[in-house]
């Protein structure tokens, strides 16, 4: 109870106008290639406001950050401090509508902080289209906090975090960079890009492309219904990529006993593999091309198979496309 009260006091102090625009005692984020989006461009029309708030833990550290912002972008960047700094930027056609835009903050005693945006309704408010209002959230959080974030049409970016994340958008793009721990992403039509993820990845999109670069976690699972999957510098031991209608392109390293499976119903499957041991490749497709590796054996079940290197601890690569072509290349 006292922890809650302490947190409350901190928020109230900040809200009373003493919050600094920049977080106090915040160490700079570790250097990485991850460039988070800058603040949105200024608009000459309508009403806008921005505010900053620092939330310091009292006792239990912040371990879980839950953000739900259906009204705009969410950016979460990890850093080496313990406080959470939240910057909100709101935009509306007029002051009255601006007053309707709310950002709620709920710090819990268990280390969870929830941040939610909403727009107040009521009988007496002047109707305003959703596209005319916006709330963007820029958050700096302790690097070891697990982030669970949801947006709608806005962008969702997280970077420099060590405890993974669970990200969900409807049509907004998702970007994950320099993150350890398990990462889950789901989107209906938002392009999903994950780079430098050092934990297992589970990415699911319905009608969007998934782009993967430098994924080294134990498992990588990505499924897309209508859209492509592109992977580069993938080093996961187990890789499973699936599209219904969309191309799969993968450049990966396969480990001993590793397993790579890429399957599409209607798209081409193109895999370039760096191997460090034996590998067995099985493929099915409208046309199967093993390039310079030679002519594969045709198995009784219709699969074409070729074995390379020692059979002990051989990795398994399984490629299939019902209506598309399959191409496999070893990159030495």
């Amino acid at each position, binding site marked *: 109870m006292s922890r809650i009260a302490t947190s409350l006091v901190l928020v109230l102090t900040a809200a009373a106008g003493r919050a600094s625009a920049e977080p106090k005692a915040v160490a700079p984020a570790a250097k990485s290639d991850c460039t988070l989006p800058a603040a949105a461009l200024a608009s000459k029309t309508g009403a806008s406001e921005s505010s900053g708030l620092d939330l310091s833990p009292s006792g239990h550290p912040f371990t879980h950050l839950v953000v739900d912002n259906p009204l705009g972008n969410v950016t979460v960047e990890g850093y080496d401090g313990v406080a959470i700094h939240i910057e909100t930027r709101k935009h509306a056609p007029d002051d009255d509508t601006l007053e309707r835009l709310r950002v709620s903050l709920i710090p819990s005693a268990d280390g969870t902080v929830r941040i939610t945006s909403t727009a107040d309704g009521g009988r007496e408010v002047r109707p305003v289209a959703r596209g005319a209002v916006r709330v963007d959230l820029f958050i700096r959080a302790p690097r070891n906090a697990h982030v669970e974030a949801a947006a709608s049409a806005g962008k969702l970016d997280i970077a420099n975090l060590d405890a993974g994340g669970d990200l969900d958008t409807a049509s907004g793009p998702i970007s994950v960079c320099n993150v350890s721990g398990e990462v889950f992403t789901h989107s*209906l039509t938002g392009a999903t890009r994950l780079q430098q993820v050092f934990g297992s990845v589970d990415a699911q999109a319905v009608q969007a492309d998934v782009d993967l670069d430098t994924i080294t976690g134990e498992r990588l699972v990505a499924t897309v219904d209508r859209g492509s999957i592109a992977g580069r510098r993938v080093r996961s031991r187990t890789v*499973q990529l699936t599209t219904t209608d969309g191309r799969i392109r993968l450049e990966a390293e396969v480990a001993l006993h590793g397993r790579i499976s890429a399957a599409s119903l209607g798209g081409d499957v193109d895999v370039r593999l760096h191997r460090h041991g034996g590998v067995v490749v099985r493929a099915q497709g409208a046309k199967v091309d093993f390039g310079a590796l030679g002519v594969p054996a045709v198995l009784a079940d219709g699969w074409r198979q070729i074995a390379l290197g020692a059979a002990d601890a051989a990795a398994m690569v399984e490629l299939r496309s019902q209506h598309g072509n399959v191409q496999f290349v070893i990159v030495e």
Partner: protein
Amino acid sequence: MIRCEEIEPQLTAYLDGELEGPAGSVVRGHLRGCEACRAIATDEAALRDGLRALPAADVPASMWAGVQARLAAAEVADAERPSWRRAVARWTPSVRRLAPTFGAVGLAAAAAAALIVWRAHGRAEDAVAPAPPGVAITVPIPALSPDTALAPSDRTAPSFGGAAGVGGAHGSDPRLVAPSDDDVTADLAHEAARTSAAYAATADNLAAQLADVRSGWPADRRQQFDARLADLRIAVAGAGEGRGRQRALRAEIRYLQGALIRDEIASNDRVLAAPGRLR
């Protein structure tokens, strides 16, 4: 002699055991002699004991929506009050105010969270651009109707014998999917249903594609598939609108994709998520 008005602000710290030495002694002495303050302290202590005794609640997403809606309503009423009263009430912690409204679970959630509505403060010099148009989903969007989750659809796909079938299972209710472009609040209220409907449309589309494939399977394979799909659709129907239903629909989509593209019928538990936490 210390007055009640001076004691009351210290009660929280006193009950938390944070007042030591003379400060604690002063409060303790006052409570011995003041029945009114003793009653307040007793109430406060009883509330805390009750909260501690409550089991940890897994608060559903709808709970938060309810809290938000009530807060919004309260703030609309608040706006009609004089400005000085608004200023005082704005930052009042909501635990006790919410308690009778939301019952035990709500009380636990509210108490555990110490709800704060962070209102605007600090006018910005820099402004931000308006949001882009809302969700742009081009897939056909039927709505979910829990009652029809296992029933064959008359819209998207043929159905088969057996409990599950692979026809479109997600019925249509235009009330859930009609875009509400008149006001942002109404639009937000329909957001979850719209998103679920888009996932449901994808699941129905995959199920329709599976129809031909399934007819070529042997009976035991069809049975296994139907049973698994029925389980997944029960999970969809049983999930509350919002992220829970969307999660269940994503699991169904994954399973249908696995069956259609990979011939994986038994389960899609091979995906990263742990059993019981399929995404």
